[in-house]
């Protein structure tokens, strides 16, 4: 493994790991706040129990997210110092703002997690709201920096040097809005479905458990609403990519020839040697419509660009198909859930959650959102190659001169696998261990378990 590949692998692995915890850190506070707000409104203890047990899980995940995020901020320099030397002054702004957002998040999370008995309930909920807002802002600022790498603005390029910089214009780059909306919605959708899946799993083991029913409902509302909105932001983003990164669009669609009235390819495997995408279902004109809003619009193919500017086409295309597929499945389940809820809304004998098959589908769908996030980032990052700053600087020009980068890559991989196993084990322990307690507690406080 050469040093460039090792550096890229380490960055990819670090990002793939961190994004899970970052997404959870954005979305879980919203779920906890909803539960706590319901508690304040209804004074039903089960909501408080729910907020508290979600808070425990969040504490573990947030800690892993905080330290793995620190690793990333150092790795920008450790792996790609020349990128930072050139771009730091331009994209340092969103990172600095993120620093303060993260500060706020960490402070109020400390208050939220440890302050249950120390401050009044309303202040406590307010602390949770602060965590939710600052968490979303942290994510948004970092994604703005990434968006700049895709569509760099706010400078002039003179003899390969970045001059006349304007950090505000850099933050307002054309990918910033669609990318931040897409990622923020993704965080809520993925976390909502993951949490709903976990509680669906517990409901299969313990039907009629009110704690898990309420938990599932809150999580699915957050996940479902955002997953239904997601195609809009996805469309916005795809149009931005079509305008600004034609090579990336061609790669993710498997479009080799320049074509007007281009079809949308669903599935399929790009054959790079022969310049064609095989086994795909083609929807006529659909790509031209989706990308440019005109059935006869011309979509530029990969062959129009020199080979050394192509990203790894197969990876990007397949990752994109998986991401979209996950989104469609989640949307379908959301519609199913809404239909069930509507159908059984006036039937006290049957709850909308009273279907083993529905719960089983939720369990299977639990990881789909995170799979979509991971593959989505593969599309964004691998699809931008060979550039680290699109059209300005190649990744190979940015990498450090430090030799032997395979060593830190392997070290961090082993470390992160270890952390992933421990985190999964601790969460599993909590999920499985808590319901017994919860039921006892619900009985103690007289909550109707049969609800």
């Amino acid at each position: 493994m050469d040093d460039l590949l090792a550096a890229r692998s380490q960055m990819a692995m670090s990002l793939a790991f961190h994004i899970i915890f970052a997404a959870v850190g954005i979305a879980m506070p919203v779920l906890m706040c909803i539960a706590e707000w319901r508690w304040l409104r209804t004074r039903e203890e089960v909501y408080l129990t729910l907020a508290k047990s979600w808070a425990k899980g969040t504490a573990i995940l947030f800690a892993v997210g905080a330290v793995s995020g620190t690793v990333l901020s150092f790795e920008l320099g450790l792996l790609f110092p020349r990128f930072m030397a050139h771009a730091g002054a331009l994209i340092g702004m969103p990172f600095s703002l993120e620093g303060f957002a993260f500060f706020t998040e960490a402070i109020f999370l400390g208050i939220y997690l440890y302050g249950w008995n120390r401050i009044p309930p309303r202040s406590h909920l307010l602390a949770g709201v602060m965590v939710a807002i600052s968490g979303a802002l942290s994510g948004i600022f970092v994604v703005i920096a990434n968006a700049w790498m895709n569509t760099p603005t706010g400078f002039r390029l003179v003899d390969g040097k970045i001059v006349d910089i304007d950090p505000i214009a850099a933050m307002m780059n054309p990918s910033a809005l669609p990318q931040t909306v897409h990622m923020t919605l993704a965080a809520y959708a993925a976390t909502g479905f993951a949490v709903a899946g976990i509680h669906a799993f517990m409901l299969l083991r313990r039907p009629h458990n009110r704690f898990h029913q309420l938990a599932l409902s809150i999580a699915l509302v957050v996940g479902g609403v955002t997953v239904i909105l997601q195609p809009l932001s996805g469309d916005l983003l795809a149009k931005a990519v079509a305008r600004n990164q034609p090579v990336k669009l061609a790669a993710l669609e498997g479009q080799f020839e320049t074509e007007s009235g281009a079809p949308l390819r669903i599935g399929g495997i790009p054959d790079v040697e022969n310049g064609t995408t095989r086994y795909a279902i083609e929807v006529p004109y659909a790509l031209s419509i989706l990308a440019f809003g005109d059935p006869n619009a011309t979509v530029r193919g990969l062959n129009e660009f020199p080979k050394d500017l192509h990203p790894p086409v197969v990876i990007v295309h397949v990752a994109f198909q998986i991401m979209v597929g996950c989104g469609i499945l989640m949307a379908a389940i959301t519609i199913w859930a809404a239909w069930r809820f509507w159908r059984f809304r006036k039937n006290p004998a049957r709850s909308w959650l009273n279907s083993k098959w529905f719960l089983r589908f939720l369990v299977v769908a639990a990881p789909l959102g995170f799979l979509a996030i991971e593959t989505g980032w593969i599309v964004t990052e691998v699809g931008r190659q060979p550039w680290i700053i699109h059209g300005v600087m190649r990744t190979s020009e940015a990498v450090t001169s430090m030799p032997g980068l395979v060593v830190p890559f392997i070290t961090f991989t082993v470390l992160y696998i270890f952390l992933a196993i421990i985190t999964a084990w601790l969460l599993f322990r909590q999920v499985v261990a808590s319901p017994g307690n919860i039921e006892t507690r619900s009985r103690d406080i007289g909550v109707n378990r049969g609800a």
Partner: protein
Amino acid sequence: MELETIIAGAIVVSLIFYALLGGADYGGGVWDLFAFGKRAKKQRELITSAIGPVWEANHVWLILVIVVLFTAFPPAFSAISIALHIPLTLLLIGIVLRGTAFTFRTYDVQRDNVQRRWGLVFSIASIITPILLGVVLGAIASGTIRIEEGIVTIGFLNSWLAPFPIAVGFFALALFAFLAAVYLTLETGEYELQEDFRIRALIAAIVVGIMALTVFALAGSGAPRVRAGISNTPWALLLHILTGIFAVGAFYSLWTRKYRLARIAAAGQVTLILLGWAFAQYPYLVEPDISITSAAAPRITLQLLLTALIAGALLLFPSYYYLFRIFKSETVPK
């Protein structure tokens, strides 16, 4: 004052806050390892409850240092990242293990052997991380990092694997352990626990003194220009006297069990030590090739960054105050 100097000052201030707050969290880990006697369990519990609600917020000071450094002085960040790749990577591993082990310990099975295993990871990482942090700062001050056109010209080991940076590493560890012990006397109302940490603080104060002299002696060959800065300049004598007063004051107030006074004196002592280093290294970010002026980002970046820093501080300090008022104001010493 020049804009870039103000921002370099903001980095130093953030580093001082990191040392005073985040540093003490690491120091807590040190005392977790050295908890012994019949109150060992109580000592550990006290440390855990003191760190729990605040360590993540305290940790962000370091992230602030990094982002402000790479925004305002990109070439300095780049050079440091290349030359000190190895200690920085080790530092990161320490940061990851400290934070996660602490959290895992809180939420894992409350059986003694499980708790001790995580406690061991937490405390050892709490010792290694400050040492590496000191090593990195020592290497930056040493004047041995030479960079030409983005190429490190002296190898990836020589600049930090040397007596001076390593001594600075242990100095940092001693300071953090000292701060933690002093703060912990105020975290409990229990006389015996207070005594435990009072004695630890006194011992740590002596070690701090020894390490300060060692670092000063090694700086003669290890970081000659910084050493000259803290020896021969007009402000140096004043700074030494002040630091001395605070050090003696901390020791005396610990001795006489005036813990609030000891906390102020200890924090003042650490602040002055860091300020002394910063003044001595001025105007260089990385001795001797990268200065504040030569590495500064364009003016517009610095202006925006300063605005963000001021706005951020206005948001940050009240929140921070609220956090500490909730968790740090109840325990009144007897």
